[in-house]
């Protein structure tokens, strides 16, 4: 029997999660020595026809990063789902919708208009915007459809495992590959990271007081941050309370607070609301006006609390217009 066949695909995302695969460094050789990569658009020259020519379930696993925003992405992830025994969502965009999911605070058409017409540096006197179909003489040119809403991977296809992170980490990817090769995978649907909150294992945990009282939130540039003390105790918003661990504290070690890229813990439906609840209890006032003032010291709280999870949150984004 030949080596297991593997595919990698990049949907709606920045490509940072492709970089993580490259960041496997020497371990990349271990992984690629053990498997055959048959599809990896960013690094190797394969065509969609090569994937179509594969037998159903011929691939052992595909690693998909990015959310789904275009019809092309939907088509390819559905194709890969059919051709692969396992699908792993790699990174926050595939798992949760990610930063690109923040686009769901707008409608698709608003984004197109903004990017092609309203941005001050754009000159577009004819008001042209991308169209799915354009006629040029007797030719018909096609572009993928731009959907109204960003979706996570599991809103489009069945996903077997999740590796969160923005980006995910080489260690988690290597562990996942090893688990597949050694047949030691956890039950389907598992998130291949820690099951505890980042706060639980944080190196600054001992400096977190029993009770935190905040009268004004600070932003990272406004104070000199003590590199050994809990961020919340310094009135800096840190999402480590409600965010899954497993990231090796990349941000904390760089003296930056957690922004929630590993997503919610098991049994939490809405990471943003959960964090809102935790943070509000630290606001040190019983007076409505004073509380409003404290809330005002958080610029764009929704964008902050839902930075990576808006597309998969309970409300999924901005509501539609009334009929």
């Amino acid at each position, binding site marked *: 029997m030949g080596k297991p066949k593997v595919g990698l695909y990049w949907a709606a995302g920045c490509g940072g999660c492709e970089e993580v695969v490259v960041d496997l460094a020497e371990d990349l050789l271990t992984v690629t020595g053990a498997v055959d990569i048959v599809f990896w658009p960013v690094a190797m020259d394969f065509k969609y026809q090569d994937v179509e020519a594969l037998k159903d379930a011929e691939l052992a696993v595909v690693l998909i990063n990015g959310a789904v925003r275009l019809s092309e992405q939907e088509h390819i992830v559905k194709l890969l789902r059919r051709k692969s025994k396992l699908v792993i969502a790699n990174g926050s965009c595939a798992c949760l919708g990610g930063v690109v999911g923040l686009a*769901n*605070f707008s409608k698709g058409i608003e984004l197109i208009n903004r990017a092609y017409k309203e941005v001050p540096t754009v000159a577009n006197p004819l008001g042209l915007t991308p169209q799915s179909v354009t006629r040029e003489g007797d030719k018909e040119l096609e572009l993928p459809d731009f*959907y*109204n*809403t960003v979706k996570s991977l599991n809103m489009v296809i069945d996903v077997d495992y999740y590796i969160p992170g923005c980006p995910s980490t080489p260690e988690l990817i290597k562990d996942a590959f090893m688990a597949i090769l050694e047949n030691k995978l956890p039950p389907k649907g598992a998130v291949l990271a820690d099951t505890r909150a980042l706060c639980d294992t944080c190196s600054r945990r001992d400096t977190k007081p029993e009770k935190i009282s905040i009268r004004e939130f600070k932003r990272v540039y406004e104070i000199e941050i003590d590199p050994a003390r809990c961020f919340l105790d310094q009135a800096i918003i840190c999402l480590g309370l409600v965010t899954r661990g497993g990231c090796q504290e990349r941000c904390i070690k760089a003296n930056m607070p957690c922004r929630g890229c590993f997503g919610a813990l098991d049994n*939490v*439906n*809405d990471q*943003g*609301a*959960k964090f*809102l*609840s935790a*943070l*509000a*209890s630290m*606001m040190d*006032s*019983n007076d*409505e006006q004073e*509380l*409003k003032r404290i*809330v005002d010291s*958080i610029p*764009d*709280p*929704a*964008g902050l*609390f839902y930075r990576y999870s808006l597309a998969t*949150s*309970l*409300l*999924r*984004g*901005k*509501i*539609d*217009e*009334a*009929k």
Partner: protein
Amino acid sequence: MEGFEPKLVAFLCNWCSYSGADSAGKAQKEFPANIRAVRVMCSGRVDPQFVLEAFKNKADGVLILGCHPGDCHYKEGNYKALRRYTLLKEVLKPFGIEDERLLLDWVSASEGNRFVEVVWQMVNNVKRLGPLPLRSG
């Protein structure tokens, strides 16, 4: 909006507002049938996720009613509710959910009249806004 009967979810604290609703009932006050009451031990027990779940499950508005400030059975649960509510209101703005669709107010066990007033006002406000069109597609 003509003919539209909003669905409202009301989280009522066990000690004050649920009893307030009861006293409205005992006094045979008339109040609209639009509310679905959910009894919670304290307004401070209302996780913001409950509110979002209600909206997600087709509620057009959500009320959280608790004891008056200073009267909480658990001393400060209603203040915790107030903190969450203040922040939640701000978070709901970019979702496009109008301010009047979420209300935190205080109704004591003896304030049957006040309960009826608060509910009527909420029903009228949400009637004017129409159904909540959740993001589809």
